[in-house]
């Protein structure tokens, strides 16, 4: 606990004033100055060895999901879990937290955060009312999220491939060149989240944090806030950082070197996260542990949870926005009336055209559903989340190489029997429609309209699953962390 030198009460960091504020006597202090005084002895120790670079924290563990949060205030009790939304007193214990190197202090207040969130939520027409409720919005909690900030250094000779193309009669003449030079570039502060409980999708959406405003870490900045625990190894995003820096330098060489302008630089085809290319050296020199501010709110609905996050430095919002089916249908009804008026004014479709349109829309829904299932699968398995993958680990075979993991059981991504029947009928219906239009040349209008109605019914049946899948995509499974205190029954 950071104690007020004037009255002995708990001091909290005030984002608006960027100072430590005593809510009891109203005094305020510089966080850096304050910390030096309070922890002079600890500072002396930490200078000796990195291993001992720790600070006192209270670790709160959720008895339901095992999620852990840290706080420097030891006289508070967390009454709900931000990760699983459980309203319960979290278990707490005094511990030592590993001291990060840098911190970007909160500069957006809770009020700023609520305002930013409400701005987004107001645009979301179909969001359930409870997501705009005062109780829900008051649930925002200031959490420092751990990040790895990498420094990338590029130096030495550059050897890029370039070409020019010209035409000569029926031939294209391609001239190949070597574009060389020397590079000296640095990229400091490329940041990636270091907590597996914090999804990469959220951290990417909240980015960027302006690392130029980071300051050396002082525990006093954490007073009044919580912090998540870093559990992702420093090496995980190292290649990605150097690859990103490499690509940016290639772009800058192309755009900022007049001698190279007339040449097309041939890019090496490689995924961005596979590290840098071979044209020049791009190495990650160091990864700094950092704490970045996030206003975090979770809303639990049955066995699903939604997260809303606001960048505590810039106010950028990334939120899960599920839809209220009734609202969705109401708005769709209104939109349908507008479209109906437009269609009646400007368009007369022949029965064939109507059937083609209905068939295309039905196919579109089936495609959307398939894409949704794939997205759900990726989200549940954390396939696209390097942090989660690194914590879960990749199965190794006896020879030490990677082996194909068994297909995980993901009920959310599975089709139920009604969905299968609908898909089967849909394919059949589209096939019959194609047959009628392109081969049978049916003269009467009625069969076309009957097929249209059939398509519309199949569309409606499938669209139920589209909406259901959407809400699965816009919400998350209740987390279960492999940390102490996790309860599988939660």
């Amino acid at each position: 606990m950071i104690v007020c030198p004037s009255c002995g009460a708990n001091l909290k960091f005030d984002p608006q004033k960027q100072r430590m504020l005593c809510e009891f006597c109203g005094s305020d202090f510089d966080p850096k100055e304050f910390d030096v005084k309070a922890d002079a002895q600890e500072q002396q120790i930490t200078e000796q060895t990195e291993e001992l670079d720790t600070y006192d924290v209270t670790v709160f563990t959720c008895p339901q999901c095992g999620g852990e949060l840290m706080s420097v205030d030891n006289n508070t009790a967390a009454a709900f879990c931000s990760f699983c939304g459980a309203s319960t007193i979290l278990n707490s214990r005094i511990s030592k937290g590993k001291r990060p190197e840098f911190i970007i202090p909160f500069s957006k207040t809770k009020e700023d955060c609520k305002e930013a969130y409400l701005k987004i939520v107001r645009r979301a027409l179909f969001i359930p009312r409870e997501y705009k409720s005062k109780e829900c919005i008051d649930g925002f909690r200031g959490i420092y999220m751990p990040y790895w900030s990498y420094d990338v250094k590029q130096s030495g000779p550059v050897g890029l491939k370039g070409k020019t193309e010209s035409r000569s009669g029926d031939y294209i003449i391609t001239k190949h060149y070597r574009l060389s030079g020397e590079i000296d570039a640095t990229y400091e502060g490329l940041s990636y989240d270091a907590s597996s409980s914090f999804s990469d999708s959220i951290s990417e959406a909240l980015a960027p944090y302006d690392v130029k405003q980071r300051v050396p870490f002082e525990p006093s900045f954490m007073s009044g806030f919580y912090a998540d625990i870093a559990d992702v190894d420093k090496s995980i995003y190292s290649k990605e950082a150097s690859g990103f820096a490499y690509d940016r330098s290639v772009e800058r060489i192309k755009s900022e070197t007049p001698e190279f302008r007339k040449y097309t630089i041939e890019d090496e085809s490689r995924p961005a996260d596979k590290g840098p290319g071979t044209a020049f050296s791009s190495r990650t020199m160091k990864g700094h542990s950092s704490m970045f501010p996030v206003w975090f709110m979770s809303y639990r609905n049955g066995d699903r949870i939604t997260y809303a996050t606001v960048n505590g430095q810039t106010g950028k919002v990334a939120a899960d926005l599920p839809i209220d089916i009734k609202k969705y249908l109401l708005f769709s009804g209104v939109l349908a009336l507008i479209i109906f008026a437009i269609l009646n004014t400007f368009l007369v479709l022949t029965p064939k055209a109507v059937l083609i349109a209905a068939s295309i829309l039905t196919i579109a829904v089936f495609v959307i559903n398939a894409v949704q299932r794939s997205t759900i699968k990726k989200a549940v398995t954390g396939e696209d989340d390097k942090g989660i993958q690194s914590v879960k680990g990749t199965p190794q075979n006896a020879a030490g190489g990677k082996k194909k993991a068994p297909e995980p059981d993901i009920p959310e991504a599975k089709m139920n029997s009604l969905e299968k029947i609908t898909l089967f009928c849909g394919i059949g219906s589209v096939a019959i429609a194609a047959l009628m239009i392109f081969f049978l040349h049916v003269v009467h209008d009625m069969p076309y309209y009957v097929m249209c109605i059939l398509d519309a019914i199949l569309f409606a049946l499938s669209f139920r699953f589209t909406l259901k899948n959407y809400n699965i995509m816009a919400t998350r499974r209740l987390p279960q962390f492999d940390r102490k205190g996790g309860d599988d029954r939660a």
Partner: protein
Amino acid sequence: MTGREVMTVRKVDFIKNHIFVKAMSFIMAAGMVMLLMGGLTAVPVWADDSYTVEQEEDDYVLCKNRDSGYEILIDDSADLFTESEENDLIPYMINCSDGGFVMLVTIADNKYNDAYDFCHSYYRSMIPEESGIMFLIDMDTRELRFYSEGSYHRQLTADVMNIISDNIYKMAHNGDYHACAREAFVEVADVLEGKKIAAPMKFVSNACLAILLALIINYFIARGVSKAVKPSNNEILKSIYSTFEFRNPKVTFLNQTKTYSPRSSGSGGGGGGGGGHSSGGHSF
């Protein structure tokens, strides 16, 4: 009054009624005969003063409006109409002829294999630069086709002609070509007079499509609003410390390759719309 007397009164009433019925029947019959006689002595209904028959053969009737010069043409090459049916159709065609030429054409053999192409060609050969409407019953491709140009084109759009075709194709399918042609010109006349024509399936199908489209569009709206906006590379670069220096740029020629890539013959793009004509139809 005794029972017998009651019977007598009833009989007298019956006789009185019987005489009244007979008298009414006679008057009506006389009236009908007079009407019939009047009808026989009168000129045909379509043959108003302004139209004269210019040419009349077995399957070909051409009438001309003396004042405007507009013509009514029936070219029944497929021999679908009797002479009286042709005469019956002319007044309906006259109703459509205020703004230009009106043609009813039937064919048994379409050398173009496409009803639209035939219409276009036939129309241009008959009245190259005049406003008009043509209705084709193509027995070869089994298609009804309207074709309009000039002033008609503004009111008789492809959409309108498709609606009319939808309304009449069943008659053609059932072999009642006379009724089909008559209804076609009745509905054309209605449209030219600014009346609405019945298009029940248009509303049903538009309503159906509107609902499906609304559901899908709203889905994409929801996705768009909830989609996380990832920062651009420039935004990321602005938020970090970065330095960049590139020295001694040098270009070295390595080799040259030659790839055979013949120039395309370069067929021209499709021509622009000729403007001023539209077409709509339905198979039967």
